[in-house]
């Protein structure tokens, strides 16, 4: 129980002091802005041992957030087999999050968004590039960097509309005739993905 208390204490301390403290790896000296009440109670309990280091003191400090909002968003869009966009500076991206289409501008609040099958569009000046994303995640960082990862992302022109219609009909029928939970889930996924592709092609 005492161990838990010391961990909780030091976590809140190092969170506050991590911005001013530079981590020195494997140093046995204490960071200068450590909680003195913690150190004192530690010394009372275990006077011959150094107070413990916490993981935060070994980590590099987080990159500082610029005080003024940058004018451009830096996008890294990666797929398992290719890096689609790497460090590209754009004005805005619209991502298909599970909570709806989310527009990301520079200075967006740090967010982790799960993506659903849908269109992702990258806006650069008057140039808009659209991709259909199968699913994935988007990590928006405080310094206006967006990391978007997807398993499959294709430009809309590469999708075959007749296949989409066929797939939609097939999965709607499977959904109606499914018996086990797993079959229902698979059919439901099929319906969702094909409807999203349909909407993407016609929208």
């Amino acid at each position, binding site marked *: 129980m005492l161990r838990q208390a010391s961990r909780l204490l030091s976590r809140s301390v190092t969170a506050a002091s991590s911005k001013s403290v530079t981590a020195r790896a494997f140093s046995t000296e204490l960071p200068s802005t450590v909680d003195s009440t913690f150190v004192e109670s530690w010394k009372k309990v275990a006077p011959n041992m150094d107070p413990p280091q916490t993981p935060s003191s070994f980590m590099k400090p987080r990159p500082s957030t610029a005080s003024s909002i940058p004018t451009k968003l830096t996008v890294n869009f990666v797929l*398992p*087999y290719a890096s689609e966009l790497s460090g590209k500076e754009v004005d805005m991206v619209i991502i298909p999050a599970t909570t709806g289409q989310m527009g990301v501008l520079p200075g967006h609040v740090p967010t982790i968004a799960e993506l659903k*099958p849908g269109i992702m569009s990258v806006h650069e000046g008057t140039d808009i590039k659209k991709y*259909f994303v*199968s*699913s*994935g995640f988007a990590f928006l960082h405080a310094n206006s960097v967006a990391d978007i990862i997807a*398993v*499959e992302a*294709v430009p809309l*022109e*590469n*999708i*075959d509309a007749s*296949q*989409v219609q066929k*797939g939609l009909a097939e999965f709607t029928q499977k959904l109606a005739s499914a018996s086990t*939970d*797993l079959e*229902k*889930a*698979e059919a*439901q*996924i*099929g319906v969702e*993905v*094909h409807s999203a*592709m349909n909407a993407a092609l016609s929208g």
Partner: protein
Amino acid sequence: MASSAAVPFWRAAGMTYITYSNICANLVRKCLKEPYKAESMNREKVHFSLSKWADGKPQKPVLRSDAPEVF
């Protein structure tokens, strides 16, 4: 502690996120136009070598190559 927020339907049915994500990707790949479809079928191939262990020693490995059409 009571269970937390509503789970997605696929997790309620016992599927993991990775399975869900791979199914979505496979469905999208199936709906591509011709040259892209052939290229993408390469990406779907999964090759793995499976060895069962007995008495602390690996038995003969089985090479498995899953065809892309199988869910």
